[in-house]
């Protein structure tokens, strides 16, 4: 299964093929280390699984000519060096000829691209050493005496190398790193009837660099929340002012980005045009939102888009007014925009004026979500909902704080952001979804207060 051809041969064959209009070739390698930890009977920290992974991908997006010059065919295909090139190419082109898209040109190759910080040099230099260091951090965290039981942890580290080749001559190399750490702690207590009530808390963190992973803090928070989880009462039904934190805000604002995209405009999906208000008839804090592809060590920090367009800071919403559409080369062309814009990067939301403490006192009762069971959102409708896994009720009448569990929270951005209050402290939040090459990056308020959120119980 030796290599039967080279990348240069693929590119040259594509360049000279009469039916090929353009192409984007991605060469990707991934190195990943994984460890799955748990507590042995007797309490020792042991490794249940220890994995090392190496992935090599060569994939291409080919654009082919159709008889109708206003249309073009398109196919995405993975190529294998170990198989003869011609049959792979022939089948891809034949498939592309069966498809039909409105024609669009690749951009002119950029000559100057920004330099971005998307990888931790320490991980790139010594992956195994970084695994050992974090393993030691986990061992130390597990050994720390706590009022909760350590159950399990996971640790993933990876290095991603991507070289993008475009038929316009652009060749761009990028390097990124990912870290994932999770910790699960549980707690139990005996109830008055003699039965035992137990619950757990799983906390997770994604990041790009080691300095952003606070293993000790993560394990401490998981243990603390596990303790709170056995002190809960049931959530009562009603409409609440609700504090949500950066993890939830990141998802909700990412959903809003899709409604500001050229892709949605073209496909007639829900779209908020330039000049329109993001939140209709709001009385709360006005949202200012941008895509920042150069945010250092963000989960989506890139120099170019998937279509080779240089990425730069793009304000999308200023003081609740939409000021730009996020459109890559293809949809910018379809929509007759003057130029493609930024479609990748950290979703950056300007901080507000409110301290966390003031948000907890913003109403007689304020519900603070510590963890949803599973937040389900609909980017088209802007609705969201989840069971409440763990929450805090700030009762400002009695001056108490109670922990709650259960009940179903349901909301809609257009309704529940009307009285939005954003916190004055901004934080970074990173998330990577399985093997998806594009991460979810957020830099913005650490928390926000939503109003009139429905909770069923």
């Amino acid at each position, binding site marked *: 299964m030796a290599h039967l051809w080279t990348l240069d041969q693929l590119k040259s064959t594509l360049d000279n093929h009469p039916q090929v209009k353009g192409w984007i070739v991605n060469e990707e390698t991934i190195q990943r280390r994984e460890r799955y930890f*748990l507590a042995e009977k*007797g309490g020792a920290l042991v490794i249940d699984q220890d*994995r090392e*992974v190496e992935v090599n991908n060569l994939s291409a997006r080919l654009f082919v000519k159709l008889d109708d010059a206003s249309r073009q065919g398109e196919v995405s295909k993975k190529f294998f060096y170990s198989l003869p090139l011609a049959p792979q190419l022939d089948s891809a082109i034949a498939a592309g000829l069966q498809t039909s*898209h409105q024609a669009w040109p690749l951009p002119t190759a950029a000559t100057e691209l920004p330099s971005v910080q998307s990888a931790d040099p320490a991980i790139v230099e010594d992956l195994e050493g970084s695994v050992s260091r974090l393993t030691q951090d986990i061992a130390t965290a597990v050994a720390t005496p706590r009022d909760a039981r350590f*159950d399990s942890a996971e640790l993933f580290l990876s290095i991603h190398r991507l070289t993008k080749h475009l038929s316009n001559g652009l060749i761009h190399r990028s390097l990124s790193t990912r870290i994932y750490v999770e910790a699960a702690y549980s707690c139990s207590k005996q109830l008055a009837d003699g039965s035992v009530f137990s619950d757990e808390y799983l906390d997770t963190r994604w990041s790009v660099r080691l300095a952003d992973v606070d293993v000790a803090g993560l394990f401490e928070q998981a243990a603390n929340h596990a303790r709170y989880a056995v002190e809960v009462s049931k959530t009562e039904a009603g409409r609440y002012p609700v504090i949500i934190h950066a993890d939830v805000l990141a998802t909700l604002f990412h959903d809003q980005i899709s409604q500001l995209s050229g892709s949605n405009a073209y496909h007639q999906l829900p779209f908020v045009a330039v000049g329109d208000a993001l939140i209709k008839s709001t009385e709360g804090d006005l949202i200012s939102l941008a895509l920042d592809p150069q945010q250092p060590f963000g989960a989506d920090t890139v120099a170019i888009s998937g279509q080779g367009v240089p990425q730069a800071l793009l304000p999308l919403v200023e003081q609740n007014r939409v000021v730009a559409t996020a459109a890559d080369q293809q949809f910018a062309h379809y929509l007759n925009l003057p130029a493609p814009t930024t479609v990748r990067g950290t979703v950056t939301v300007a901080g507000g004026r409110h301290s966390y403490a003031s948000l907890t006192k913003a109403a007689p009762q304020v519900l603070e979500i510590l963890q949803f069971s*599973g937040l389900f959102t609909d980017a088209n409708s802007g609705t969201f909902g989840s069971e409440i896994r763990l929450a805090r009720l700030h009762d400002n009448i009695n001056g108490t704080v109670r922990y709650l569990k259960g009940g*179903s929270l349901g909301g*809609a951005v257009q309704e529940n952001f009307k009285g939005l209050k954003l916190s004055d402290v901004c934080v970074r939040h990173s998330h990577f979804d399985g093997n998806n090459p594009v991460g979810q990056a957020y830099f913005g308020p650490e928390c926000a207060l939503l109003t009139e959120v429905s909770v*069923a119980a």
Partner: protein
Amino acid sequence: MARAPFSTDLHPLRQFLPSLLPVLEAQPGWYGSVYLERKTKLTHTVNLRQSNINDEVSLGVVLRIYDGYTLFEQSSDQLEPEALLQLAQRFAGRVAATPPAAGAIARPYAPVSWSERLQLPLDDEIRVQIPADANAATEVHFGIRCEQDPTRLSNEAILGRLKAIVERTKALAPDAGLAEGDLSFVQAQQRYAIEDALFIDRAVNMSQTLYRIATVLVTMSGPHRAHSVVGGLGGQEVTAGLEDKIAGTLADLAAVRQAELLTPGQYRVLIGPSIAGVLAHEAFGHSQEGDTCARGRSKAWDLFQSGEIVGNQHATILNNPAIFKNGDEDFAAWGSYFFDEEGWLAQEQVLLEAGQLRAPMTNLTSALRLGVPRSANGKRESWANGVYTRQTNTYFSAGDATLAELMQQLGDGFVATQPAGGMEDPKGMGIQVGIQFLQEVRDGKFTGRVFRGPAGGDVQLTGYTPDLLNAIVAKSKIEYTRSDADEAVHPQNKVGGCGKYHKEIVHAGSGGPYMLLAQATLG
């Protein structure tokens, strides 16, 4: 009916890979195995604006050493024999240099021979494909049955069918009361994959080839959405029914456009098979995953040991990767296979029987840690991901009522169909099941009113799992429109997916009968 053959171009690798086993078992107490996987996926998409083809292939090998304490894996897509041999030697060196942690308990494992495997109660679809004299050197292959070989269909034919579905959808929209412009987005998509897998250890050399096909129709009107999916394992015949669902999908979309907002509260609900499946999956599916139990993260393990009852006589949940006839259909359910990714043969397993927990599903290491039997639930997102205990097809057992009888028993309440995700809470025993389509019923009849969640999104059914399992009043037959006895053996399992610990996505089927719940929280 033909069976899917093992792809011939993988034969040279199949012959080479056993030569790595001595390296992977170089030290006493090591159990070595090799898993090879190739998934060739073709996705054809047609919408109102464009058509597209995506051709993805994922091919890689996992070298495995279990040293009695830890399962070590080395995954790579560099499949040249010389490179693999070097990789295996480097991997063995890494394992040898990693001593077990202080306090770790040894749990040795020895592979299981064909003669021992044949002692297990296996489905006939599996048994007939194992030669009677199979031994460690026998190349045993399992192929999915298929009537219309999907590998022979051209791109042109598939795209042609999808275009026809999109056109038909547009044409039928006025019949559903949708005016021109109401139908803002229509997309038809076929996802087809050839999934070859090979598992080798010193006792077996077995392969399987599955054809996985699903066709999806998505319709939208502004932010409102309705969709239909047909799919399973088999030939192109698996997706034959989508055209029949166009009118229903459009009717659902028209209804959702007019839907009212639900007042949150406790309601009497008749849940459809796909919602019942998600309930089973989230209730005592995830919490009955052996690795979650071994991590100390599941209440189900405590309840299994204590024997505490957590549901009524209707609360019976099964997991079964060996569903080769799905409901009344003559093809396999979405979550089926012949063996899992650690080489364990598929078998039906009862997870909860009339409210009483049975042993959990397992993968290799969780079975050893818990001291319970292995089951065929060792799965991974891809060869590049780790193996966990995962569900296959999870479903409630069937009852004996017809749907018409259940509607009468429902009286006033709601019928919930079309799931919208779900989430487990293995330790805290909470549950969340999303519902896309909720219809009001009064006096056993549909009123025509449809409801969305209180804020306009999907309705969420939530609660404490034992409360919900004690609220089951009655269950339908598998063939719920007929009054005579079921001919089908397994309840229908729908096309679905499953994430674990908020990542690691795999295929999963889920299903069951219609189930009447006396009371559930909807919000």
